């Protein structure tokens, strides 16, 4: 018994890596199909977009890079699905350098599915360096901040940008964010100044610190991590990576809980046994 506890206490971390690898892999091959309910912040995200009149213009700022793809790309796709279904005009910006090509793919894929036309129904304005300064600059003039789209076409020649000067000309902002710059800066610099409806999809790491913003109403909706993406996909009616990953998420969380439990059990039982031996 003592040898077993010592083995557990001194377990080589590569065994833990193996268990985690299996915990994530096996549910992908053998799905459990566990159902889940939708939480209020996610419902708020969906409802806020749903309330926007059809045909309105929305700004979608995709502030992430490939490092957060599994959490945020499903949110982006599901959001585009909902917006294109409502015939909303989507203006996309990126404040992270590695964001534009990823978002371009999502836009082109969804545009093909919904037969939307670039420049008329959506546009990818690309990336601008500057973080909060870009947000404040957009508050003055979006065309001056983004004189061309991602592919170099002047915005004066893009139909969707006609009549868009600043945030006052937009119905709401959808922010998909991986960190800094992201939701916090959009709340501080844009929502606080211009009082425009703002919803956020963010990584699970950031989500806990945005609950205060949701409670005050600065955020009208919040998607947190892959679970948030899965709940949102359920509302929109799509089966994306968010939903497909939920079983693996469940099993991996149970595995981490199991390791915390046996780690503590082994530590405290060994300590008690060693204490008895000393006596």
């Amino acid at each position: 018994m003592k040898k077993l506890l010592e083995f557990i206490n001194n377990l080589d971390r590569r065994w833990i890596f193996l268990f985690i690898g299996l915990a994530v892999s096996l549910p992908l091959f053998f799905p459990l199909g566990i159902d889940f309910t939708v939480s209020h912040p996610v419902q708020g995200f969906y409802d806020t977009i749903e309330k926007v009149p059809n045909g309105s213009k929305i700004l979608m700022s995709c502030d992430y890079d490939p490092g957060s793809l599994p959490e945020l790309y499903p949110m982006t796709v599901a959001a585009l699905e909902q917006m294109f279904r409502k015939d909303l005009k989507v203006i996309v910006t990126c404040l992270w350098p590695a964001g534009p090509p990823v978002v371009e793919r999502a836009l082109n894929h969804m545009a093909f599915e919904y037969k939307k036309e670039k420049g008329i129904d959506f546009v990818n304005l690309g990336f601008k360096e500057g973080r909060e300064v870009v947000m404040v600059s957009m508050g003055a003039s979006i065309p001056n901040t983004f004189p061309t789209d991602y592919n170099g076409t002047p915005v004066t020649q893009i139909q969707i940008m006609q009549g868009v000067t600043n945030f006052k000309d937009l119905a709401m902002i959808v922010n998909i964010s991986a960190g800094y710059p992201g939701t916090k800066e959009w709340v501080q610099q844009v929502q606080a100044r211009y009082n425009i409806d703002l919803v956020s999809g963010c990584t699970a790491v950031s989500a806990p610190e945005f609950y205060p913003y949701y409670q005050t109403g600065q955020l009208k909706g919040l998607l947190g991590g892959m679970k948030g993406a899965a709940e949102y996909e359920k509302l929109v009616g799509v089966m994306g990576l968010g939903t497909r990953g939920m079983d693996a998420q469940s099993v991996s969380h149970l595995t981490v809980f199991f390791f915390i439990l046996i780690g503590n059990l082994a530590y405290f039982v060994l300590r008690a046994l060693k204490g008895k031996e000393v006596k």
Partner: protein
Amino acid sequence: MTAEALGVWLGAGFTLCILSFLYKDNPFYKFAEHVFVGISAGYGVALQFHNVFLPNLWRPLIAGNLVMIVPLILGMFLFARFSARVSWLSRWSIGLLIGIYSGIAIIGFGSGDLVAQIHGNLLPLWGSDYLTSFNNWILCLGLIACLVYFFFSREHKGSFGFVARVGIYFLMISFGASFGYTVMSRMSLLIGRFYYLYGDWLHILPQ
């Protein structure tokens, strides 16, 4: 083999190189790491060139907007750092950037965080249903206790120390929730990668 298929095999290969670090540091990981750093740095420069330099600086400048010489000069000043003799010029550009960001941050934190969050915590402690009232009491008392804990100008003893200890408990709950969500986030990233390897590369996932 199509370009797309070749790309997936290349991506999977590099993914496995990075994954090999779990066993131990090795030449495959080092190779992949250096390729990544090179590609990302080169990517950034090309992106900045097409998305910022050309549309925001170069085209307005050659179209006759001579005021754009100012940011061009300020930008070039940053490169003065490479020479010990004129490195002081870079401080002008850095001073401008730091001043602007400080000013914007003061406004952002003041209006977006400080005022709005205090306003958000001014909640009715009775009058609505029991659960809402209970929650509002927890929120108010919790916030006050945490802020008392953050007040280090007075020693945490007596009743002040008791309230500070309650504040620590609320902070521990916060950090525990953050840890739980962090685990969720990290596992999601791994799920995404395994989905790519099993699905997009090997095509062995069930439909």
